[in-house]
């Protein structure tokens, strides 16, 4: 599928001067270097309620279709793409340079990579639920 044109660089190298990253969490990845395949996946139930979790019952991922509904798929298969499409890459320069990168946070199966990758797949399924007791009606003035 990938044909390399002549008189060019076969691969580009990434070079970054400085990087400042505060937090990587929740199936996030940071990598300096090349990588073949990445599979980041996160399922999260963010439940906020006005009662202790220990007394107000369990929560299950299986209760919510969001966590088991299938992912949308492309109708073309990879074999057919290889039959119809040929990609030629011409790299005129052997380097990609970045002076400084500043990131505060990476999370929820996010990926930060300095270098080349082949296949990246990230999946994030998050459901928020907020559960509050109904506020009591305020009695009218003068009662």
């Amino acid at each position, binding site marked *: 599928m990938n044909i390399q044109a002549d008189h060019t660089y076969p691969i580009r190298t990434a070079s*970054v001067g400085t990087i400042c990253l505060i937090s990587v969490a929740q199936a996030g990845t940071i990598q300096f270097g090349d990588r073949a395949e990445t599979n980041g996946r996160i399922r999260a139930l963010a439940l906020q309620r006005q009662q202790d979790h220990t007394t107000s019952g369990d*929560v299950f991922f299986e209760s919510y279709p*969001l966590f088991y509904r299938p992912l949308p798929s492309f109708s073309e298969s990879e074999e057919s793409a290889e039959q119809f499409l040929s990609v030629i890459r011409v790299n005129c320069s052997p380097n990609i340079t970045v*002076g400084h990168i500043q990131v505060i946070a990476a999370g929820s199966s996010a990926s930060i990579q300095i270098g080349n990758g*082949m296949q990246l797949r990230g999946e994030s399924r998050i459901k928020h*639920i907020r559960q509050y007791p109904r506020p009591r009606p305020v009695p009218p003035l003068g009662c």
Partner: protein
Amino acid sequence: MLQFTVVNHQLSVGQIEILGVSSASMLQVGDTDNVALYSMFDTPPESVIVGPMAPLPLPEDAGGSMGEF
């Protein structure tokens, strides 16, 4: 047969400043072949439950499974 030619000229960036990379997103300095990112995020109005503090619904096989807390 479709022929797709990509010419990568000089690429030089001074500074990148990002607040957050989140929910199946990517930041890459480099080349890649194949990227598939999926994100499902659910906060509909129905997800705010205001009423008596009843336990949340259990799945069908709740007896055999463990809770997430």
